[in-house]
């Protein structure tokens, strides 16, 4: 019955460490909260009921373990005691660490809220701990009763007391090793015999459960109102649209091509630079000047020539909507209006940096001072790409 004693120790270790860690977390959570702030008295009560229950269970486990130990105090069974103790300690430390990690999480949650409301997480941890302890206790009681039974048998029978682990016991319905010959089947293949053990009940119930799941799932999704994958998608998009609308209601972000303004403060420029260097470099090069050799994809943004018009409004517009015909993609779905404004401002800040190996000029000279009517370049952008292609090849 060696396993029994082994198991008791391991389980007690788990139980004890669980309890210690839980009570520690309870203290940490409760102490910083002033009593007058606790509105949710129920939560507190529930917590303490669960905790006391755990303590009670632990005491009972301790008692049962003591009784069992007394009954088992004869010698043979305690061989390898030290090895087992070491195992128990290891399990204790492991569980404590695991739980203290959970504690930290629970604590963060509690700290974030001004009141002590037991978080769902903490509640369920407590419930699981209690259930676990109860399970341990029941298991130990069961083992104790079978131990007492076996001690009552005659000495001759006691010698063949059958070891039953959980796997060999009620969970597997297995015939014990010693009685195996009773269920050995009468055939043999190349020396391989077969036993006729029953299907393990837990396995069979799992099989039934999965079949039931299959039936319910099919009925729900095929014959009832279970959502199709497009329903799911539409719901997801509707929620996102709602959130986005709520966000855009925030005026600070509500910039468009007609209201965008050049930003010159350092933080806006560096935000713009950061975006530029992750998103735009692929075509415009890190310097913004694209490249001469090998021929870069995007035009030089550091000179005074612009294909789709320079200046804040035009650049904002080009970034926002893109010019798909020429390979410039629309960034509307990836950058907020403010971010577009920042990137445009950064691009304008690159004017005249004249980087090495920059691409030759394309498009027309853009003059900022209003000498060119603001409408003109906008129009040319909107015209057919043919016109642009002409200017581009003219530039070459």
């Amino acid at each position, binding site marked *: 019955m060696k396993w029994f004693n082994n198991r008791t120790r391991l389980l007690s270790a788990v139980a004890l460490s669980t309890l210690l860690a839980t009570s520690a977390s309870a203290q940490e959570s409760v102490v910083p909260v002033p009593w007058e702030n606790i509105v949710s008295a129920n939560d507190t009560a529930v917590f303490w009921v669960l905790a006391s229950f755990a303590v009670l269970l632990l005491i009972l486990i301790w008692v049962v373990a003591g009784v069992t130990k007394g009954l088992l105090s004869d010698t043979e069974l305690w061989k390898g005691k030290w090895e087992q103790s070491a195992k128990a300690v290891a399990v204790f430390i492991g569980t404590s660490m695991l739980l203290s990690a959970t504690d930290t999480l629970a604590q963060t949650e509690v700290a974030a809220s001004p009141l002590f409301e037991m978080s769902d997480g903490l509640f369920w941890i407590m419930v699981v701990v209690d259930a676990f302890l109860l399970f341990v206790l029941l298991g130990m009681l069961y083992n104790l009763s079978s131990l007492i039974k076996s001690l009552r048998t005659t000495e001759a029978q006691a010698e063949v007391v059958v070891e039953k682990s959980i796997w060999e016991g009620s969970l597997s319905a297995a015939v014990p090793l010693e009685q195996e010959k009773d269920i050995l089947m009468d055939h043999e293949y190349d020396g391989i*015999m077969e036993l006729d053990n029953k299907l393990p009940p837990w*396995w069979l119930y799992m*099989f039934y459960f999965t079949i039931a799941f*299959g039936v319910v799932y099919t009925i729900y*999704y095929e014959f009832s109102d279970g959502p199709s994958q*497009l329903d799911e998608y539409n719901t997801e998009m509707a929620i996102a649209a709602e959130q986005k609308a709520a966000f855009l209601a925030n005026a600070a972000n509500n910039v468009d091509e007609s209201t965008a303004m050049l930003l010159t403060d350092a933080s806006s420029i560096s935000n713009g630079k950061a975006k530029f260097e992750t998103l735009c470099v692929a075509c415009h090069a890190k310097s913004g000047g694209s490249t001469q050799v090998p021929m870069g994809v995007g035009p030089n943004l550091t000179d005074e020539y612009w294909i789709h018009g320079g200046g804040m409004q035009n650049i904002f517009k080009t970034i926002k909507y893109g010019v798909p015909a020429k*390979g410039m993609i629309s960034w509307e779905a990836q950058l907020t209006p403010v971010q577009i404004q920042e990137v445009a401002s950064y691009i304008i800040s690159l004017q005249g940096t004249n980087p090495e190996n920059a691409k030759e000029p394309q498009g027309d000279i853009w003059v900022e001072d209003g000498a060119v009517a603001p409408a003109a370049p906008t129009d040319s952008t909107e015209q057919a790409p043919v016109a642009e292609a002409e200017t581009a090849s003219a530039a070459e």
Partner: protein
Amino acid sequence: MEKETFRYDNSIVRKFAFATMAFGIIGMLVGLTAALQMVDPWFNFLTPYLTFGRIRPLHTNAVIFAFVGNGIFMGVYYSLQRLLKTRMWSDALSNINFWGWQLIILSAVVTLPLGITTGKEYAELEWWIDICIALIWVVFGLNMFMTILKRRERHLYVAIWFYIATFVTVAMLHIVNSFELPVSFFKSYSWYAGVQDALVQWWYGHNAVAFFLTTPYLGLMYYFIPKASNRPVYSYRLSIVHFWALIFIYIWAGPHHLLYTALPDWAQNLGVVFSFMLIAPSWGGMLNGLLTLRGAWDRVRESAVLKFMVVAVTCYGMSTFEGPMMSLKNVNAISHFTDWTIAHVHIGGLGWNGFMTFGILYYLIPKLWNTKMYSDKLSDFHFWIGTLGIILYALPMYWAGFTQSLMWKEFTAEGFLAYPNFLETVTQLKPMYAARAFGGGIYIIGVIAMLYNLIMTMKQGTFQPEEEASAAPLTNDYTAHKGEGWHRAIERRPIQMLVFSLVAVAIGGAIEIIPTMLIDSNIPTIASVKPYTPLELEGRDIYIREGCYNCHSQMIRPFRSETERYGEYSKAGEFVYDHPFQWGSKRTGPDLHRIGAKYSDSWHYNHMWDPASMSPGTIMPSYPWLFDSELSTDLTAGKIRAMQTLGVPYEEGYDQLAVEDLNAQAQQIADNLKKDGIEVLPQTEIVALIAYLQRLGTDIKVKDAQAAMVNQ
């Protein structure tokens, strides 16, 4: 009854054992190369033949069909003779099986690096190799069946049930999935298109896992675990229940590879529920393996054979639990297209198939050479370093899978993707890819240790080509025992066993595939979707040749995180001219279904020449050979005719005009590139590839898509 004396053929077992060892190490080294390519594209060595897109199919084919395939034959040829108390029916067929299989592998080793591929995962080999595979497989089955018929053991042991189910099902899967129309010796098109092709392919692909990597190995488990542990099998009735449940349910589960795709919902739902119901039948096998060792665990500590088998069966249990979980749609939404899948299959591959094969080798070689293992310590070393290798392989891949999936799906408060640049989600994974290569590397070190150990064992022993045994022949006057189970009757009727197995596996496949083929409403047509132009078709064939589908999907799932990133989700009607489909199963790079018209031609040109120039830090290799190779148009007319045969509506006689159209379109692209300062000959392969990429996903505008949705 007088006993007869006969001899077991050990030579054929030895041949397959050598092949298993050789292809094991080769397949794994190819895998290691692929793993290193994910860390640094330098390991593509700038040669077309070793790029990831061609190496990855080589790795999967070598490991599945060469390593595990030879392992199956090795174990079956050894155990079948002994379980039936007879020699193999025909030594000639045994040898045809052996040499034929090796020739098939050899042709795979040659054709795959050359880019000769059908473009369907795990079924990449071209049509004439497919025919050879079918023939050799039938040779194997015939030999096995004739051996069964002349057996001296009345009843068939559970291992043989699994062998029979393996034989019929693999034959069925391979033949149905390989229907293809040859255009030339080196090129064919899948008979099916789009959604149908995807369903057939994953019905095949999933069940290649089930009936090539699982059922034959369960059969081997049922022979070698009781033999090596000298214990009776735990439960005969568990064998019966889990065998029939497993083969019946497994075949339905294929659509779980296509969750949230354009496959109709009803087929997806069938895939989900049958995958979930697979847990218990799979675990039945694990339990029967592990519980057989009840009362023999002290021997497990001593025996390398049993140690390997215990870890193998445990890995089997883990991945057959994980698989059904990944088949739940909400889990699949996270795991699909990521490295999670890679971790999952390698628990199965390295753990279950690898360790089971090693266990069998450690059992067989000393037996066949009539000696003991050369070094038990070295076997132990192999066991521990192999186990460590599995862990170090799997953990980084799980981590990578979760990381990437979470990055793909994260939105900012503004409602934008937090990582709009796909590349960010890839560079993040590089350390994990390096750790994976390390884990795989030390697993291979273990295999090398095994090879050395086995060779030294052979050297110290003497091989016995023939092994004498005796048994009484079967007589015709058998009367059934009173009160025997109904299943005993099937066990002494091999033909019934074969037929019932075939029925069990045919039901699921038929119910899923036939309606998808025949009922139009499953694939709503979209009027604006037109066949590819000849140049695009040629470009598509280059896409397939280079194995782009190994890293890029063409299937935008209906998730906000995907439609924001890639564009409108993919519709079934968009793939009706795709022979074969190219949805892919893994996104090492971004989805490409709506890549068309997103970037300029020059962007693609520069990107294919040197991906890092457009996407710094990318792990995509360069494809400089596309810029030198002239596009061959010899087959273009034939390809158009083949497509017409397959039902693609090109006008009558268009094959004669195809090349002219092709040249015109190529010239257009070349002109386009010239505007951006790029001089390119219109007849180069890169031009065709650009044409294909620029076409992808552009046939529908969002308005049409909505119309199509309403029609659904």
